[in-house]
């Protein structure tokens, strides 16, 4: 078997985000050695873990050449309902008239509810995309508004705050000394998603429908069902993210997660996943997420204003896509 001839352009495309990340870390380290203290490293990772988790799901969506703009809003609904149920269901009872106070105080149930709400949101949107033929951009733009409105309506615009230690462990706790729990979850789910995409038939099919949906259909793939599934997956992560954010902040707010869609999509795109589908990886997304965290953190440590941070990240997104186009033009014959 002759495996040693690998396309150099493809290779460069795969490793560009990593190279960029390393360069960035070295620059920030030389400017300020405190940057690489373990405490700061865990801090950076914790800051990106929630958007990073959602970005894992978004990678599936973008690999199929889709998009989901609703993740921030879906996160807020999930976080509110799960917090409410955990605290005895005051708002739930006001809306439905049912008393669910017996379900309160159960962390596993609360997390399951958050995730279920996320999955349900993904199912609804995925169905609209595959059955009604409305572009994903439009459906999820609608979802962005619908879920935000639903969150505001649910809690009447107010927060649901103050949980016990068992609940807050998932956002604030640490294990193995200094490692924040959300970081552990981020890493575990990243590994799981990587395995699914690289080593299972399902993962291969996700790449295939993103690369060429018509060829995928003619190869016997159920393009509709596969497309639906990726919106369910990103919904799962939005719900999970809602639970963790609620726990981290000791509060669920109707305005939580606003603007997350941009950070999440940026993480995926900077990580080298093509918006046109068919090319990319979860590892890239992890790198992209960390890269955004490093940029933010490094700029803060060097007293750069948060306004400038936004400018820098915006420019990097455009450069990342320009690079993707370059790779694509080299692959075409």
């Amino acid at each position, binding site marked *: *078997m*002759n*495996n*040693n*001839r*690998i*396309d150099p352009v*493809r290779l460069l495309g795969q490793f560009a985000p990593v190279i960029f990340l390393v360069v960035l870390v070295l620059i920030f380290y030389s400017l300020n050695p405190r940057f690489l203290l373990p405490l700061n490293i865990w801090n950076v990772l914790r800051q990106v873990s929630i958007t990073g988790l959602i970005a894992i799901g978004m990678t599936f969506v973008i690999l199929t050449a889709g998009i989901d703009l609703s993740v921030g809003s879906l996160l807020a609904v999930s976080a509110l309902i799960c917090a409410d149920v955990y605290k005895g269901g005051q708002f739930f009872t006001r809306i439905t008239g049912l008393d669910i106070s017996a379900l309160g105080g159960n962390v596993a149930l609360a997390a399951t509810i958050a995730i279920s709400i996320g999955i349900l949101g993904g199912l609804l949107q995925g169905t609209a995309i595959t059955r009604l033929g409305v572009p994903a951009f439009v459906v999820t733009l609608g979802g962005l508004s619908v879920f935000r409105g639903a969150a505001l309506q649910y809690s009447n615009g107010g927060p649901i705050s103050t949980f016990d230690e068992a609940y807050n462990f998932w956002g604030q706790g640490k294990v193995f000394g200094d490692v924040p729990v959300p970081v552990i979850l981020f890493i575990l789910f990243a590994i799981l998603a990587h395995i699914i995409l690289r*080593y*299972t*038939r*399902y993962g*291969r099919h996700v*790449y*295939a429908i*993103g*690369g*060429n949906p*018509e*060829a*995928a*259909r*003619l*190869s*016997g*793939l*159920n393009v509709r069902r596969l497309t639906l599934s990726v919106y369910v997956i990103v919904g799962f992560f939005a719900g999970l993210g809602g639970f963790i954010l609620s726990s981290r902040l000791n509060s669920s707010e109707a305005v939580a997660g606003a603007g997350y869609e941009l950070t999440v999509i940026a993480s995926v795109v900077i990580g080298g996943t*093509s918006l046109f*589908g*068919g*090319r990319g990886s979860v590892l890239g997304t992890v790198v992209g997420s960390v890269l955004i965290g490093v940029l933010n953190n490094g700029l803060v440590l060097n007293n750069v204003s948060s306004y400038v941070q936004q400018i820098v990240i915006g420019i990097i997104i455009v450069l990342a896509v320009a690079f993707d186009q370059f790779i694509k033009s080299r*692959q*075409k*014959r």
Partner: protein
Amino acid sequence: MSQSNGTPMLAMRGISKSFPGVKALSDVTFTVGRGEIHGLLGENGAGKSTLMKILSGVYSPDAGDILYDGAAVTIASPHHAQQMGIVTIYQEFTLVPSLTIAENVFIGREPGMAGGAFMSWGKLREQTRAILQSLNIDIDPMTPVSALSVAEQQMVEIARALSMQSKLIVMDEPTSALSESEVQQLLGICRDLKAKGISIIFITHHLEEVIHLCDRLTVLRDGQNAGGAAVEDITIDGIIQMMVGRSASDLFKRTTAYATDEVVMRVNGLTTAKNINHLTATALHDVSFEVRRGEILGIAGLVGAGRTEIARAVFGADKFIGGTVEFMGQPVTIHSPLDAIQLGIGLVPEDRKQQALFLSLATRENLTITALGKMVRWLNFVRFDAERALVERYRQALNIRMFSPEQTIGNLSGGNQQKVVIARWLAMEPKLLIVDEPTRGIDVAAKAEVHQLLDELASRGIAIVMISSELPEIIAMSDRVITIREGRLTGQFTRAEITEERLMGAMALAMVTA
């Protein structure tokens, strides 16, 4: 009647053009008189398109010179060709559907006002109306193009050509998507243009149109001049004689027939509706055929006759509204490609890049996409050892040339890409393989390899339906041929009955029985 007034409109002399591995044109001479309608004929691959692309500035010739309107010219780009008054109307229109007729006619050259800063809608409308009137077309210039029929869109293309003051219009298969009455209208317009002194190069496979419309014709064969004549001096048979008679020396020769009596698939009365998303697609009417174990059934027809539509309908890629399919003696319903695949049907589609390849994926992943389900363990984890072994097996069996299975499929040659697509289906051990234009866009040597492969598959008992627009390929490979025209079956020929003349007749003319 057209040659009388002095120098010709166009004289291309000694034109040669090569592409890597292919000599597309060799020393071709082509002359068109002023106000002449000139038919350009030849089979697919004969060099018509290449010659016209040189004329319209898409390619530059390796050798030869072009005299246009009496002067030697170098045509640098399509834009340059248009400026000189040479306009090509392609089969795929170049209109913007959301804009009006007037905007399309003057696109890029909108009449201005206030020194050109603003577009003048008034002038735009009036000038377009004048052009449409000169063509005897009564449509409001402000109608959006998306509301027009295919024939009307073509009129807009012609109107645009006129608005550019063109002196020479190239029409590439202009009638292939038109109904009978629309064809008559188009021919009328061509005669009007001719009366205005405009020269027309008319590319078509429909020989009657040539006889009715053209003044002279030129036939190309294998990139060379195969003859030319004034239309009044030649018959349809004579034209066919010029078009065919190519040497079959580089084609694979089948020596044995493997067809059995066992019918694998029987299609009865297949009928499809006009596909509104696909205006160039042809509706099928009552198409019936069968294909047997070990048989290669050729489906021949002109571009737009409905060949590909048969393949897509049978494979479940397009819906059909009437007809039944029996597979291995059982009535079956096929609603999706997945249904077809589960029965044991594979399709190698006509357009490799658009319909078959995953350009962002590796060769390995492209090859195993259909058979992956057989190479998984628990939780559908892919067994990479089995996958690599499969790729290696087909790499050797089909002689697929690649550096590595991990190489992006786009970097393989066309012939090797096609072998990967065929291997994809072989890996699921099909009972019936439909191949649509199996050798399109691949070089001569790879062509012979693909033909040999199809022969070998037939010998292993696979039923093969082969669609091709290349008659020599159909003739060399088929045990039996059906011909189709305008969505209807027009003939059926056994191997002994097949001649290029007969097929051409059945494809281009009305019902012929052998």
